């Protein structure tokens, strides 16, 4: 299968591979996909007190397109605030990497991973608020 140079660049030199401390309150973790389907993405964001994503990391089990999609996603997430991050679309990823039609699901998975990481972060924040508020 012929892949674009952008895709090959992200596959051969993946950005932001690694893990953040998932117990950290400032870190949101998204884990999407399934081993039996052939792709699993773990995407993590660290959000600072201003609500800006200051770091993003990923680990992906999957094909080259899945790895490139998650690499690109982490690159784009850095420096964005949460509402900007929530607006990242799978089609942007698919277009940038020129994903072939059979690989579009990889970009959808990356969008799911972003949403899952943000949701995890928000849940942690709301739990923290609840925990800090003395029970009535």
């Amino acid at each position: 299968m012929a892949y674009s140079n952008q895709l090959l660049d992200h596959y051969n030199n993946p950005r932001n591979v690694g893990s953040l401390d998932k117990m950290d309150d400032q870190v949101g973790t998204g884990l999407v996909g399934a081993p039996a389907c052939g792709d699993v993405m773990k995407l993590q964001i660290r959000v600072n007190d201003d609500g800006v994503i200051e770091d993003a990391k990923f680990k992906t089990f999957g094909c080259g397109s899945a790895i490139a999609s998650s690499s690109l996603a982490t690159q784009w997430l850095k420096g964005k605030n949460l509402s900007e991050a929530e607006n990242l679309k799978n089609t942007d990823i698919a277009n940038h990497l020129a994903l072939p039609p059979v690989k579009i699901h990889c970009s959808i998975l990356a969008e799911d991973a972003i949403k899952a990481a943000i949701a995890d972060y928000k849940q942690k924040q709301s739990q923290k608020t609840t925990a800090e508020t003395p029970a009535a």
Partner: protein
Amino acid sequence: MNNIYTLPTAAPRQRPIYMDYQATTPCDPRVVEAMIPWFTEKFGNPHSRNHEYGWEAEEATLIAREQIAALIGAEAKDIIFTSGATESNNLAIKGVATFYKGKKNHIVTCVTEHKCVLDACRHLEEEGFKVTYLPVMPNGLIDLDLLAQSLTDQTAIVSIMAVNNEIGVIQPLAEIGKLCRERGVFFHTDAAQAAGKIPMDVEAMNIDLLSISGHKIYGPKGIGALYVRRRNPRVRLSAIIHGGGQERGMRSGTLPTPLCVGLGEACRLAKTEMTEENTRLTSYRDLFLSLLSDALTDLHINGDKQSRIPSNLNISFAFVEGESLMMSIKDLAVSSGSACTSASLEPSYVLRALGVEEELAHTSLRIGFGRFTTEEEVRQAAASLIAAVTKLRAMSPLWEMVKEEGIDLRTIQWTGH
């Protein structure tokens, strides 16, 4: 351990190391040499009876038949030339089923057969035949008791491949043949991956029909053969291709003399060199495996460990997806065990039939060694694979969960899509 290996930087334009000998093989230069005169000065139609051009071409095809027959313990007259193993398999299964249609209507085959066998059987089902698709055991071999139970007085033919193209396991041919002979059922075997690789004897193994492919045994593409037993018992079949009545009426069409000569020479070389070649390939296979297992954990070899040809390995590299692994080993030409490069996202039907878990089936590669493989290539391939697997495991969330966090992946609620 992780730092010893780095990805070898291939020189620009250097072709990848060929390790896909189950897909096809290069034509042996000695085969090409034998073929060349038959394209040019000796161009006659082997079916021309009236002049020297025809006679010499016919004699060449006769010698080729003898060479092919010698490889499988048959006689020259038993050999039918075809365009390849796909045609041979179609002719054997459809031909026998159709010829004996009035008396018998049942076919037995196996779920891990090549697609051309399975599709020919599906076609016959549409025509009203009954087909039993035998499962395989986790080692990829059929259960002989199940085979015995599946045979009825309506069974016309059993078609079981000799060597599997994906996992390299050798089916118990002699036992299958004995059973079929006792029950009066014809035994066809697709020997595309077996002829010239393992000793085959149609008498000792009670094989009634046997398919051969030219390009799997260092011969040319576009030629194959079908052995059809002429006596004890005589096998009859209905032709698929009609015309001038060549090949005892079973396969019309002018014989391609150069291709026939090439297949014959390929069979002759395979017979002469089989023992020596298998010894060499076994040592390469063992070297390759020991290099891999010294550096990597969690490798799974698919298919039986003993009953297999030395030139094939199908390995699951747990926690690393097959297609991305292939992208990381650009200096190697291998085949992905998973069909993930297609839209289906489904792993190989052969591995699934073995009961290989889907997540492992997604991590499989088929590696094939052959006549022109060198020890240096084996070492480079191992180094390249080790580097790629190590790199991809370092970025695999599954590896992290299992190896660093001790999580059982089966306890996770996955969001399949």
